[in-house]
């Protein structure tokens, strides 16, 4: 196995762990943590692919930085959404916001 495959498998493990947590966690904060895990896996995969394939290392690293910026923006918004949900529904669990008003 080449080095790149090892790095990609680690990123894949992060994706699988994050997906599992996303599906099994009940609190919104726990789900946010799982999203961060998956985004880390994505960054790791992008950087390892560009570092070991010889197609523009700078491009891959720039993409990883963009992923980090998006993750920071997403974390900010999700924090406020969790705060609003906690304020309106009394707790920050995904089951609290599962009923639509219609």
């Amino acid at each position: 196995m080449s080095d790149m495959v090892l790095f990609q498998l680690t990123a894949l493990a992060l994706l699988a762990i994050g997906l599992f947590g996303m599906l099994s966690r009940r609190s919104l904060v726990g789900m946010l943590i799982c999203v961060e895990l998956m985004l880390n896996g994505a960054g790791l995969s992008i950087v390892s692919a560009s570092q070991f394939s010889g197609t523009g290392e700078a491009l891959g690293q720039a993409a990883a930085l963009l992923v980090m910026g998006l993750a920071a923006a997403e974390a900010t918004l999700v924090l406020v959404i969790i705060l609003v949900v906690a304020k309106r529904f009394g707790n920050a669990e995904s089951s609290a916001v599962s009923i639509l008003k219609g």
Partner: protein
Amino acid sequence: MTNQLVVQISFAIYALLIVGGGLWAVLDKSLIRALVGLILTLFGVAGMYLLMAAPLIALMQLLIYVGAVVVLIFFAIMLTRAPAGGEECDKPDVRQLILALLGALAPAAALGFAIHKYAKAAREVASEIAPAVLGKVFLEPYVLAFELISVVLFVAMAGAVLLGFERRRAK
């Protein structure tokens, strides 16, 4: 060659940090301890960036994730007043856990097969690039993406402030 051995050992340590921290973050009942697991994972990923000869990304990983995102999540835990034992104290639903495991393993298996079959590295040693090259990428061909990410960040922050104020006014 001892150099190779050091790299292999540190890769194993970082992989252990990533997988162990990830499992801890996903399985622990207390959200604070789950956050500690996430921090372990973030450090492991930063170490992997170092191994891949991308020290700037490793530094940014520590600055942005451990410095900012983790603090944000900590605030989220603190401000939602999670009960001391965590919100996931009630008995886990075994059926839901099994379904979650299946849902996580299905895409992982497909992607793992693709990696096993198609991922071929063109070279074995990653080369380090100077930060100046990265800066040129951001300021010359990809300046639009660079500016857009700052707009996205600004909109996210402004939206956060707006939502926060609305919450207070509604009270």
